């Protein structure tokens, strides 16, 4: 190109420059869309998180200190393979989760009518947390795994006594997930899969 410049002013060829400029504009537009779009998304996400957090600390309904409520606990019987309901009074709590903890503590204590408790008597109920979607996360102490040598039948009974007790008494609970010491475990004793939440099974409850 340089060689051809002798004498005459070279006729500038604007084609490539125009294409380049066009590309730059497109790039700039894309960059703007990219960054502002991303920003908007981030903001929206933050808003969603804030929204999700906001209603969490539910206003504690001032429960009367002496209020009681009746729950049905599920135990085993020596006569058949079914779970049998037993009524028990517990102190009303400020939330379903608090009452669920009390109900499970009663389940651990055992039957007052000669039924068989499916959980080790040493079991600690550390916490129950109920999500908006209706999954109750029940966190037990390690005794639930260590104090029994589970067979399939006793492991199934332990799991479904907990699941059915919560689902039958608390409308907010649709499914139950079992944790041990705050962590997900594969099984209690090598049988039943704890990595998925359980829907209640009332087919194993005596009519």
């Amino acid at each position, binding site marked *: 190109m340089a060689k051809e410049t002798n004498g005459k002013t070279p006729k500038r060829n604007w084609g490539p420059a125009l294409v380049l400029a066009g590309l730059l504009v497109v790039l700039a537009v894309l960059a703007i869309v990219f960054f502002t*779009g*991303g920003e908007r*998304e981030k903001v*929206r*996400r933050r808003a969603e998180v804030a929204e999700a957090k906001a209603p969490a600390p539910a206003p504690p309904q001032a429960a009367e200190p002496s209020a009681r409520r009746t729950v049905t606990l599920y135990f*085993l*019987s*020596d*006569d058949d*393979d079914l779970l049998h309901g037993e009524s028990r009074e517990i102190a009303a709590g400020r939330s379903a989760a608090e009452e669920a903890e009390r109900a499970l503590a009663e389940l651990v204590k055992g039957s007052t009518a000669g039924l*068989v*408790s*499916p959980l080790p008597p040493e079991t600690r109920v550390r916490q129950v947390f109920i999500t908006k*979607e209706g999954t109750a996360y029940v966190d037990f102490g390690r005794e639930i795994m260590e104090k029994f*040598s*589970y*067979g*399939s*039948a*006793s492991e*199934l*009974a332990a799991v479904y006594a907990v699941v059915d007790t919560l689902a039958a008494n608390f409308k907010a609970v649709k*499914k139950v997930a079992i944790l041990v010491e705050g962590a997900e475990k*594969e*099984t209690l*004793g*090598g*049988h*039943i*899969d*704890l*990595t*998925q*939440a*359980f*829907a209640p099974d009332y087919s194993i409850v005596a009519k």
Partner: protein
Amino acid sequence: MDRKRRGVPAASLAALLLLAGLVPGPPARACGAAGAPPWPEAKKLRTVVIDPGHGGMELGAKGKLGHLEKDITLSVALKLKALIERNMAFRVVLTRDKDVDVPVESRAAVANNVKADLFISIHTNGSRQKAAEGSETFFLSSGPTPDEETRRLAYLENNGSRIEEHADRTSEGDVKMILWDMAQTAYIRQSSQLADLIQAELNALLGTRNRGIKQAPFKVLTGVACPAVLVEAAFISNPAEEKRLATDEFQASVAEAIYRGLSKYLQLYP
């Protein structure tokens, strides 16, 4: 969010293709040969994986007389292995052949890695009820619930491009585990047939109470990519049955019953 969603159709399509390839629909029988071209009349040696329940530190159920589930399951499994190898053109793989810990997920992995055609887990039952007795055979209760399925698909969509990139090397990482979560759901019908046939033989040979075939979410069955059952032979928690379980004769009868059920199943799926 909006930008991400644009990539979703392609990603989910890829994920679906991947699923279709790795988790075959109800296949004839060679379940382990997922994704492999169907060889019409190729006579390949079939493989059965026998899983003696528990082991090592994990004792399983304990009898009042001191017998342990893990010991009896191993003994039955070894007898069953010998029986199959003596009489059938089957390769037998055990998930453990001595008293060692084997994580539950590794048991399914053993079956899938050797491209098992059948998976049989052997257990003896235990209950809090003193009088509980009898034998039963389990297969997996139906697969993931819609909730979990949604969660999984969301995961696949969000990680679509990554899955495409890594589709070839699924030996480690999330992809394989996700697919294994669902692996057994494709074989529920065959698993129930196998359970039914084994249960009938347990009733005929053991003389224990017939507790029938049942479904439950057993961890050891969820990831197995072929027909899979879990046999609960008698209750070690019941002293009368514990005494029987401890004998060589009874253990041999359990192995024989499973072997006969297996033979009947193979007549259905020759």
